[in-house]
């Protein structure tokens, strides 16, 4: 192909150069365009805008929140609430926004992460500003993770979940085993699981190899509640009751897994115990309230009351214990609209807000005591709430400032132990090491 013309770079401006100049102009225009794309400055100075960030629980929950938010805005015309959803990596995102100085005003604060935020002064002690009688509405044990070392309250639980024993009535009937009662001990549970396996071929118990799921067993057999706030606290695993109950449980699990009557969810090719239970691949599981809406949604033919039911977690030698999981609404300590935020919190977390967002939605339990008898509560949730006073200890999922990190590390160790990759002794050693490790820096 020959070139189009001969003269090189002469006096006249060749067309390509013009085109190039136009291109540069276009680019500049684009830049200007985007800069002009910034959201218009919206609010007149009197109106406070607060940003509220949560993670996703699907469209229905988002719509409920939006309904409540517009209700709130109607009642408080000088406040605008901007609702933001962060679908994954929630805490990382919030952390990143703190680093950028653009953290939301109010956001979900998980009990596992709360201590870090509190310790670093990132959240505001709302307990100081909220009326006494408002705070008293909540279950006292749920407030624990959100209290700082200075005793101040940094957030109120917006809802919570509790562990219960779920059992499949049909499998029990098939195996001829009587259903769990209030008198059940852990031995009764294991015996029932064994029998069910022998009679039906399905494992009697499916449970995650996670420290938080095993804590009811440890606590009810005399172990003290775990608190890890420094490397020295690794000594928790030297405690006699802890050692004996943990060793017992691991060895039982290892043995039972070989025999087939106790499994982890992966053993029956499921992602979590809720799925295993819903598919009726195991007769019992110890899981949280979140399982109830899951079953309703994914396994609609598997009905509460007729096909499955809830029971108290069995008793150990030292009483009965269960775990509570909760999330609070944390307030950015540098927020500029404290009053607006407080009003918002009291609305969303008060009885009116919880009735719509928690009771009706049915994903979690209301954290306000009086709502336990609300007629709109799902019957299964009502039953769970009724159990609460029967426990000697309701342990909140909170072990100190490194809860999230430790839980992950413990799960690795316990998972290896349960699969027989390491012995119970080695597991205990490793657990201690992990605690020491995470406080090293």
């Amino acid at each position, binding site marked *: *192909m*020959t*070139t*189009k*013309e*001969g*003269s*090189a*770079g002469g006096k006249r401006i*060749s067309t*390509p*150069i013009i*085109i*190039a100049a136009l*291109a540069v102009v276009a680019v500049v225009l684009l830049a200007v*365009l*985007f800069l002009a*794309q*910034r*959201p218009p400055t919206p609010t007149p100075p009197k109106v406070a805008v607060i940003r509220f*960030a949560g*993670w*996703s*629980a*699907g*469209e229905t929950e*988002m719509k409920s929140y939006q309904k409540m938010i517009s209700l709130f805005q109607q009642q408080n015309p000088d406040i605008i609430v*901007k609702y*933001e*959803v*962060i*679908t*994954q*990596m929630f805490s*990382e*995102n919030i*952390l*990143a*926004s703190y*680093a*950028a*100085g*653009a953290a939301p005003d109010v956001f979900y604060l998980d009990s596992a992460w709360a201590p870090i935020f509190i310790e670093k002064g990132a959240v505001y002690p709302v307990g100081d500003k909220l009326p006494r009688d408002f705070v008293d509405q909540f279950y006292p044990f749920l407030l624990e993770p959100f209290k700082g070392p200075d005793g101040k309250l940094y957030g109120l639980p917006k809802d919570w979940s509790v562990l219960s024993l779920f059992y499949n009535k049909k499998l029990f009937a098939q195996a001829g085993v009587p259903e769990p009662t209030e008198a059940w001990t852990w031995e009764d549970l294991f015996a029932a699981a064994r029998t069910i396996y022998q009679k039906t071929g399905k494992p009697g118990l499916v449970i995650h190899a996670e420290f938080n799921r095993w804590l009811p067993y440890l606590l009810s057999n005399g172990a003290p509640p775990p608190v890890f706030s420094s490397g020295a606290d690794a000594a928790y695993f030297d405690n006699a009751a802890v050692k004996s109950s943990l060793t017992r449980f691991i060895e039982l699990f290892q043995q039972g897994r070989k025999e087939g009557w106790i499994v982890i969810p992966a053993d*029956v*090719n*499921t*992602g*979590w115990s*809720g*799925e295993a239970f*819903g*598919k009726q691949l195991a007769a019992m599981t110890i899981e949280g309230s*979140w399982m109830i809406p*899951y079953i309703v*949604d*994914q*396994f609609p033919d598997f009905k509460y009351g007729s096909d499955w039911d809830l029971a108290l977690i069995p008793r150990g030698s030292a009483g009965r214990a269960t775990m509570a999981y909760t999330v609070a609404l944390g307030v950015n300590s540098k927020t500029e609209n404290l009053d607006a935020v407080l009003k918002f919190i009291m609305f969303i977390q008060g009885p009116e807000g919880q009735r719509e967002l928690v009771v009706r939605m049915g*994903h979690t339990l209301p954290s306000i005591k009086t709502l336990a008898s609300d007629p709109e509560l799902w019957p299964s949730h009502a039953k769970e709430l009724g159990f609460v006073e029967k426990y000697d200890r309701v342990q909140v999922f909170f072990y100190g400032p490194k809860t999230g990190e430790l839980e992950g590390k413990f799960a690795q160790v316990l998972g290896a132990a349960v699969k027989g990759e390491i012995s119970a002794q080695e597991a205990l050693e490793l657990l201690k090491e992990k605690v020491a490790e995470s406080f090293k820096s």
Partner: protein
Amino acid sequence: MLLGERGLRVAYLAAAYTLMVLLALIYLMPFLRSIVASFMTWAQASAYPPEWWPNPFTLENYMKLFRLSLFPRWILNTALVSGLVVALNLVTCSMAGYAFAVLRFPGRDLLFSALLTLLMVPPFVTIIPNFILITKLGLIDNLIGLVFLGSASVSGVYLMRQYYLSLGRELFEAARIDGADPLRSYLYVALPLSKPALGALAIYQFLGSWNAFLGPLVFLRSVENFTLPVGLNFAFSRSLWVEYTPIIAGSLVASAPTIIVYVLLNKYMIRGTVVAARKG
């Protein structure tokens, strides 16, 4: 002899076809599986031993998708972002790729290596600095911001550069000797020959933009602004479990545009012959 030749051709065709079909099966198999799964309930889709035929056959997964009030909006957002990204990249990458491959400039190769090095940085550690930067620039929660960030992809520049290099320097040398100025050379020599590479570039940028998850996840906040992958994730993953079958259905729907774009561009890319001005 004719018969032998015919026989050889038949054998060759048979071998070629077998190979093609075998490969196609391997590559298509997971797709077939996900199409089938999208018509099953999760209970059945995850059943073990695995089942092949949807029973009951359910359209529920797709219904769940279309019941999402924001689903059309998300598609629109994603289409807008992807379209703009492709258009911008076609221009910027071919220009820069040409420049790096052909034009002479002091420190050119060093500059290029510096650019390439940017690709090698592990992603997670740069999230926070990027986030800070984007926030300070006011680009958070802004779809045009996303477009802007992706408007001159480094891997796109790299692709175009390598393509021009493979055309051979002699081609452009010839043009230079003939006295054509560089810009002319770009417009009249390089561009016409770049169709296959531009096609590939368009496909890659469209794909990357359409399926992008991490970027939109970090930089978008309002649900109305979400792109499709983030939106699907929002709708179907709860904090403790994920509704897989609607996501499978959703991702099939989401792949459809990419496949269409690819099919269209494919015809554009595969040209019969390429005229190459090689002198020996």
